[in-house]
C-alpha cells in the first residue's frame, strides 16, 4: 500500500457547544486524488483548515507530508499548497505580481511558467478584479503550486465555474496527479468526485460516513442497478419482472428493469432473450450513482 501523505487521527474541532468535527480518522495516500464530500456544515472546510494550519484543533493528531500542521507552520507552507474556498487578492494586483510575491516569500524565482501552464499567459498584466472567475481559480491554483508542494488542498475549486472552466481545471488537477502531487479535494460536485478522485470520504455531521473508491462507496449502498435492454424482436416487451430483475417501464422499444444484484439481473434477462430466440440490440447497466449513494447517506444521517 502507498505511503500516507496526510493522516488524521481522532480530529476534534468544536465551536462553542457545536462539534464541527467529531474525532474523525482519514488517510490520504501519496500521489492520489482524495475527495472530501459532504453537505454544508458537515465539517469539510473545518477539517481542511485544521490541516492547512489556519485553525487550531481541539483534539487528535494530524500529519501533512510528515509535518504537524498545528505546530510546523513554516515547514508546512513549503510542503502544502492551498487553494481556499474563499480566496482573494487585492483588486489592483496583477497576476504576475501575485506570483512574484508568493515565490519571493518562499525564497524562489517567480514561476511564471505555472501561470502560462494554466492558460494565463495573456492575463499576466491583468488586475485581479478584471480576471474571470475561472482565471482567478487557475491563478490561485498556480499560486498554491508556487512553492513546489508535495500536497495540495483544493476547497471547492470548481464552484461557480462554467462547463469549459470546470473541464480546464479538471485537466489541471489530473496533470498535477500525473506529476506525483497528492491532492485533497473538497467538493459538492458528485460527478467531479466520481471522475477525478481515486478515493473519497463522505462526511456527515462531523463524522466520516463512508470512505473508499467511488465504486466501493457506491456499491456499499442499498441503491438498485438499472438495466436497460432493447432486443431485435422485442421479446422482453411487454415487460415482466423475472428472477431478480423488477420491470419498471417500457419506452421506444426499450425495457427497464431494476435489481439489487446486477449480475443476476443481467443473466436472467439474457436467458429470457435466448429462450425466445431473440437478439440483444442494446444493453446498458447503470449502477447507482455516487450522488444517489450520497443522498442515501445524508438522508440516513439526518434521520438519526
Amino acid at each position, binding site marked *: 500500500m502507498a505511503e500516507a501523505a496526510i493522516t488524521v487521527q481522532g480530529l476534534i474541532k468544536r465551536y462553542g457547544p457545536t462539534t464541527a468535527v467529531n474525532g474523525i480518522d482519514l488517510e490520504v495516500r501519496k500521489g492520489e486524488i482524495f475527495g472530501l464530500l459532504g453537505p454544508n456544515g458537515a465539517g469539510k472546510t473545518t477539517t481542511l483548515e485544521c490541516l*492547512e494550519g489556519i485553525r*487550531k484543533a481541539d483534539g487528535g493528531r494530524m500529519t501533512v507530508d510528515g509535518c504537524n500542521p498545528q505546530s510546523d507552520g513554516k515547514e508546512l507552507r513549503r510542503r502544502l499548497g492551498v487553494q481556499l474556498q474563499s480566496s482573494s487578492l*487585492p483588486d489592483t494586483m496583477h497576476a504576475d505580481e501575485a506570483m512574484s510575491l*508568493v515565490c519571493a516569500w518562499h525564497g524562489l524565482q517567480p514561476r511564471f511558467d505555472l501561470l502560462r501552464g494554466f492558460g494565463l499567459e495573456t492575463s499576466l498584466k491583468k488586475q485581479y478584479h478584471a480576471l474571470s472567475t475561472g482565471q482567478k481559480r487557475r491563478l490561485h491554483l498556480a499560486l*498554491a503550486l508556487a512553492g513546489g508542494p508535495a500536497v495540495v488542498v483544493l476547497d471547492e475549486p470548481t464552484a461557480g465555474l462554467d462547463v469549459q472552466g470546470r473541464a480546464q481545471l479538471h485537466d489541471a488537477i489530473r496533470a498535477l496527479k500525473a506529476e506525483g502531487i497528492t491532492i485533497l479535494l473538497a467538493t459538492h460536485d458528485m460527478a467531479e468526485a466520481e471522475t477525478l478522485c481515486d478515493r473519497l470520504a463522505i462526511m456527515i455531521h462531523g463524522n466520516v460516513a463512508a470512505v473508499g473508491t467511488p465504486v466501493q462507496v457506491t456499491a456499499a449502498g442499498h441503491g438498485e442497478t438499472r438495466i436497460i435492454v432493447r432486443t431485435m424482436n422485442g421479446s422482453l416487451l411487454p415487460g415482466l419482472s423475472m428472477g431478480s430483475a423488477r420491470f419498471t417501464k417500457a419506452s421506444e422499444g426499450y425495457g427497464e428493469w431494476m435489481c439489487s444484484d446486477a449480475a443476476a439481473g443481467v443473466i436472467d434477462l439474457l436467458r429470457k432473450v435466448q429462450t425466445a430466440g431473440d437478439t440483444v440490440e442494446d444493453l446498458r447497466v447503470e449502477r447507482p450513482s455516487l450522488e444517489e449513494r450520497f443522498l442515501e447517506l445524508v438522508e440516513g444521517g439526518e434521520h438519526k
Partner: protein
Amino acid sequence: MNAFLLHLWVQFRMDARERGTLLTFYAVPLTFFVVMGAVFSSINPTTKETLAASMSIFAVTMGAVLGAPIPLVKMRESGVLRAYRVSGIPSRAVLLIQEVSAFFHLLLVSAIIFVTAPLLFGADLPRDYTGYFIILLIYIFASIALGLLIGVTARSQSMATMLSQAVFLPSLLLSGIMFPASLLPRPLLWLGRIFPATHAMQSFSVLAYHLKANYSGASALGITAGIGILATAIAVWRFEAAGREELG
C-alpha cells in the same frame, strides 16, 4: 530582491492604480490645501505663519485616518489576508507594508505642501527645518498608528468609516489647524487634546516656527509620539489576537 522590499514595491504600484488611495492620500488633501490655503491666507494673514504645518496635519490626518483603515478591513473581509497566510506571506509583514507605504504617501504629500505653500500663498518657512521634519515624521507615524488601530479594530468597512470620522472630524476642528484652538470653549479645548493633531500643531508652532503656544512644544511632541506608540502597540496586539481567534 528581498521579499519584503518586493512586496513593498508591489504595494506602491497597486496604490498608484487604486483610485481610492489617490483620492484620499493626494487629490482631496491637495485640493483642500489649494482652496483653504487661498481662503485662510486672504481672510486671516496670520494663518500664513503656520500654513504649511496646518495643511500638512490636515493631509496626514485625512490620508492616515480615512485612507489607511479601509484597505485593511477589506483585506480581512475579502479573504486576502487568509490567502496571503496560506501562501506563506506573514501577516505581520502585511501590516508593516501597509504602514510603510502609507508613510511614504503621506510624506510625499506633506513635502508637496511644504514646497508649494510659500510659492502659492506666501506661507512662512519654519525657523527650524530639522524640527519641522522631525515633528512631521512623528505625526505621520502617530496618525498611521491610529489608522491601523481603526483598521484592525473595525469589524466592517462601515464601522471603520464611522470610527475614522470620529477621529478625523474632531482632529480637524479642535486641533487649531482651521482656527486658533484658544477660541474654543474650555471643554472642547481639553477634548481636542485627546487627538495627536492638537499636540502636533502645538509642536510645530513652538519647535519649528518658534511661536508662543499654550504648553511646551517638547511635551506636545512627546504626547504625539506616545499616542503613536500606544496605538501601534494596541493595533499589533489586536491584529495578533484576531489571528489567534482564527487559529482557535
